[in-house]
């Protein structure tokens, strides 16, 4: 499927933005262009399309998950904790059902079979921020600023210590192997889909580490691959965590620029640009992939306009 075709398919969705975004959930729109690029990246790698099942963790209005549905993935689960977001997603699903993009296995006008089904599930990733968990500890191990943060320049070493032997404090539990802990608030069996896509909250002062918690849940639910967005400033930390701590493969699929619009009154600027990596975590050994883990396969500019 061509990028333009996918983009026009997603552009037809009635709900592409949140009419009243919730600040604590970091709800901001995923652009049609971004969603389409991600889906095509996954399609190229065999992680999407016919024969695969997909789960979008924290789907919002469903822009990412429904992109996967638009490339004839067998089954797509949309999971979010916000009933209003799910209602918007449901209207988007209804639209695609009407257009025969989603339906039973019958072919649509173009002759290609559609997505077999999309399911909406209301569930919330459990997250206890390290600071709350470890009140008596010295704190100061917070590992990133908010979504609208100004990057992490000059904060080198902020992740220091989490791999050290002496680091046995409670907040260490955030970084344990995702496959060892199913008690993450998402009442779904492990390995239920091939691929999980997640655009997690990047975390604020009050819930730092939530992106790692989303990543862990995503890894638990997937059999084949996970696609997750992380601030580029956290790349060394995230890659090291995935590879050394969890023993999984990781590659940076694309580097993007998120333009976070000023949806909230406390943002002083009209919008904030944040550099973001699309990271792919995968299980199967694939030729040549291990060597280019720190490389950036593609540079893409993105506008969440």
């Amino acid at each position: 499927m061509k990028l333009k075709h996918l983009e026009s398919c997603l552009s037809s969705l009635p709900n592409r933005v949140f009419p009243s975004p919730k600040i604590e959930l970091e709800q901001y729109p995923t652009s049609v262009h971004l969603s389409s690029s991600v889906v095509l990246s996954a399609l190229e790698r065999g992680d999407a399309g016919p024969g695969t099942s997909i789960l979008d963790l924290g789907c919002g209005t469903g822009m990412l998950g429904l992109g996967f549905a638009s490339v004839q993935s067998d089954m797509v689960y949309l999971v979010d904790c916000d009933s209003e977001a799910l209602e918007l997603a449901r209207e988007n699903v209804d639209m695609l059902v009407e257009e025969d993009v989603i339906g039973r296995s019958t072919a649509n006008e173009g002759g290609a079979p559609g997505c077999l089904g999309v399911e909406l599930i209301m569930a919330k990733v459990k997250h206890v921020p390290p600071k709350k968990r470890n009140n008596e500890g010295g704190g100061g191990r917070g590992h990133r600023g908010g979504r609208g943060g100004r990057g992490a320049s000059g904060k080198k070493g902020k992740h220091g210590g989490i791999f050290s032997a002496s680091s046995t404090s409670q907040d260490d539990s955030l970084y344990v192997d995702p496959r060892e802990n199913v008690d993450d608030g998402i009442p779904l069996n492990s390995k239920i889909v091939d691929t999980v896509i997640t655009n997690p909250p990047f975390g604020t002062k009050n819930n730092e580490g939530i992106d790692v918690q989303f990543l862990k849940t995503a890894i638990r639910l997937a059999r084949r691959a996970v696609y997750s967005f992380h601030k580029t400033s956290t790349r060394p930390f995230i890659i090291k965590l995935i590879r050394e701590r969890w023993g999984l493969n990781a590659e940076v699929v694309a580097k993007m620029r998120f333009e976070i619009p000023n949806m909230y009154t406390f943002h002083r600027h009209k919008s904030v640009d944040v550099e973001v990596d699309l990271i792919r975590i995968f299980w199967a050994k694939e030729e040549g992939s291990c060597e280019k883990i720190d490389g950036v396969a593609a540079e893409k500019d993105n506008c969440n306009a």
Partner: protein
Amino acid sequence: MRLLTHNVMRNNASAASSTTSPPRITAATKIRVDEFAASASDGGDDDDDEAMAASRREVEFARHVLPILDWEALVHAAGALGLSSLPPSVSKELAEDVGFLRALYHVLMNVHLVDGMLTCEVTGREFPVTGGIVNMMLEEHECE
């Protein structure tokens, strides 16, 4: 909520750690069953080809998903929705039978619990299903 979705649900709360089965369907006030698409074959040749392709895809899907199913739970859930056509267990021969796989696809994907209730057998925790969406929200204290 499709029966496939129900089948992959688990109450992961630590209090329910002794169970590996999905919560039971304890109420089903509204059910929707989509038509059995694969049986449509009264059109021309093109339609037949399409129906064949669709049917093959459904069979492949069912074959793919069969190993991860909790069969006993599926039989029970289908029963709760008034479907008693599933065999009590799946033999190796049956797992390769096209007719069986097509019927399995229908049960997994075309039968929806629209409004109802799921109940965890261990903790009694209820998960309401409203308008086809299951609410699996756990309180913080339930998952510690």
